[in-house]
């Protein structure tokens, strides 16, 4: 049992560290003295930095070499993430594209798609967004209603709405899950498309969250034309293609959770800074409960890495860790606000943003309730909830629900 690098990993870490030392001067400064303020400037600088990281082999670490990646494993990705964090430089701008959507195209895309899209994605020249969730299709993603209709000339017409779309406001392309056949059960009638975000009929609208910031968007599609080559993974295979993306989403989240900054060291530091609070029995007890669980998550992460290193698929603990992180951080924000008082809620407080962000994070990537269902069924082997949508054509299902498709 150890937390050490193997000699190979140690050599890789040194290589990444050296590159970062040499190239740190060209990294954009996003916080503190000298930080960029203009949004367009920030975006341009981050695109350029992603390109630089890609050239240095620090983006697409797990991508195959033929597509510009390094062909390495998840451990090297983690080492790379750790070193980027330690160097206090920004990571890649398009983590969603490079972490989830690119690998989906690598797995299911045509040769033309791979040649056309992967290079510019990796280098940050074209940012991507994930167009999966809808107002009535989140945890039950297979309920998507955005409709793509096949035209006589083989092209498609797309109409509908997506939501929770990070980076849509500056993305060049989106990977979109649409319904293409209403007359088959819901998991069967879907297809995945590449959608140019500058196409006529695409409208992006920022969705402001509790904090006031708009990190997500709603995206509307009004009779958007897509050519036949926009289909990824075959017509009617959208669900299988989406599952690939979701698998990479879990890996991305699992490998990045420590980086969210919801950890015991940070929260304890805030309490330690208050001379009274650090001696207050109630505060200490609450901090102890929160910190113990968050410490557990750190070591759950190491267990996950161990499994990955051995070529195993990470166990249930990875999914449950998300529940622990979010609930622990919510309690920590509450405790710190109790200690600091209303000043914790001023816009420039680091805690204000966290407190505002967490209620939504609880549902991100599937609600906590659905996550608990999934773990109860897949891990504990408990019988599933009875479902009323199995084997029923989507059109009938929708009319059952009292809506029109």
């Amino acid at each position: 049992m150890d937390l050490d690098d193997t000699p190979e990993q140690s050599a890789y870490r040194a290589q990444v560290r050296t590159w970062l030392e040499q190239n740190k001067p060209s990294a954009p400064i996003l916080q503190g003295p000298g930080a960029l303020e203009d949004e367009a400037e920030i975006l341009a600088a981050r695109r350029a930095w992603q390109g630089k990281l890609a050239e240095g082999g620090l983006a697409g670490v797990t991508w195959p070499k033929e597509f510009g990646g390094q062909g390495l494993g998840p451990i090297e990705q983690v080492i790379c993430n750790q070193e980027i964090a330690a160097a206090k430089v920004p990571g890649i701008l398009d983590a969603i594209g490079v972490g989830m959507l690119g690998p989906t195209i690598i797995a299911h895309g045509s040769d033309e798609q791979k040649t056309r899209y992967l290079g510019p994605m990796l280098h940050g020249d074209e940012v991507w967004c994930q167009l999966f969730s809808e107002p009535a299709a989140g945890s039950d993603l297979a309920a998507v209603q955005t409709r793509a209709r096949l035209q006589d000339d083989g092209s498609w017409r797309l109409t509908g709405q997506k939501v929770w779309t990070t980076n849509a406001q500056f993305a060049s392309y989106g990977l979109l899950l649409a319904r293409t056949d209403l007359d088959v059960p819901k998991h069967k009638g879907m297809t995945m498309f590449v959608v140019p975000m500058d196409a006529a009929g695409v409208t992006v609208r920022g969705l402001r969250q509790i904090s006031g910031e708009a990190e997500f968007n709603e995206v509307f599609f009004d009779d958007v034309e897509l050519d036949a080559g926009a289909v990824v993974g075959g017509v009617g295979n959208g669900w299988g293609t989406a599952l690939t993306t979701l698998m990479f989403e879990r890996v991305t989240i699992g490998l990045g959770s420590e980086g969210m900054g919801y950890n015991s060291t940070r929260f304890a530091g805030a309490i330690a800074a208050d001379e009274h609070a650090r001696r207050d029995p109630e505060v200490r007890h609450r901090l102890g409960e929160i910190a113990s669980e968050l410490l557990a998550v750190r070591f759950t992460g190491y267990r996950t890495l161990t499994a990955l290193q051995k070529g195993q698929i990470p166990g249930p603990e990875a999914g449950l860790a998300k529940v622990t992180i979010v609930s622990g951080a919510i309690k920590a924000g509450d405790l710190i606000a109790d200690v600091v008082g209303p000043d914790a809620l001023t816009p420039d407080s680091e805690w204000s943003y966290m407190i505002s962000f967490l209620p939504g994070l609880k549902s991100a990537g599937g609600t906590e309730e659905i996550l608990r269902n999934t773990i109860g069924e897949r891990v504990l082997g408990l019988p599933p909830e009875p479902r009323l949508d199995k084997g029923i054509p989507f059109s009938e299902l929708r009319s059952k629900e009292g809506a029109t498709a």
Partner: protein
Amino acid sequence: MNLALSDEQVFLREAARGALSRFKTLEAAREALDGDTAALPDLWPTACEAGWPGLLIDEDKGGAGLDAFDAMLVLGECGRVLAGIGLLGHLPATAILNDSPSGADSLADLATGERRAAYLPVSPPDDLGGGWSADPASGAARAAAPTAASADGGARVSGELAFVPDAPGADVLVGVAILDGQPVGVAIDASAAGVTVTPVERYDSTRSLGHVSLKEAPASVLDAPEEALAGAWYLAQALIAAESLGSVEVALDVSVAYAKERHTFGRAIGSYQAVKHSLTEVLRQLENGRSLLYYAGWARQGSPAEFPLAASAARSVAGNALDQAARTMISVHGGIGATWEHDAPLYFRRAQLSRRLLGGTSQATDRVSGELILQADAA
């Protein structure tokens, strides 16, 4: 990065499960509820046969030379079947002796299990200051640690220690006493004049406990470093955490099995979200506890400065997990789960008592804060 069981550790765990499966520990625990403690099997010979008493003793001193994590695996297996086996008291005592050059001679018999030791639990000071303190016989205030006075090459130790795990029947008592204002390790022959061990039973008769009264009891003073004296306290925290999580595993397995077979309103009750989510919550706490066992098991050798934090966090999470698991076990089984017809009350009793021993789960939780505040100050 390697945070997984080695082949040897898997073997150790399987062997422990096999050895303990030869005894009807749960049936005996139920009979003991009625006061028939004679029904409880004597598991010490099994422990000796397996070499568990010497787990933490160096090989050149007659032991197996293994580490805390190995001992935790064995305790986990004991916790699964509520086996009262004497290791919770014995192992931290041997750890102190093993870290004392002067204690080497006494270890051979303790490693084979011919003689049995019990650890006198005294907790080290925290970031708020204060001194070494012992569990009180009653109430919230910590009791004073035993004191020692030098006498003819050794010391005379006086003090009261309540609810000492595995003290009844132990041959030697090993712990900490304050000598001239400094903590020192002491080893006391349990049969010496001035030593009284009064067996006490509380709620869970599978747990052997004793009040230890020392009145100028003759002791040898050990040359263990202070970190080893504090380390024994945290080792005891890690061991009871491991034992508790073993109990959680079985409580969860039994509950899940029942939730699959028991039907209401035409459905297995495990298909209802309310039941499913409560079982998933037990799993969540169990997995958190498991991760912290790895942390504690790694830290004792790999990063000793973090061992107090790791062991305390493991204790905190494991204690809460066992409470949650035992209550969920009862509620999933419905009314029968609250009766002696079922094993659930045995796990519930184990949970209730375990959470109050060795400083209590709650004190471990507070210690996590104390350790993190010290870390923050040092940063």
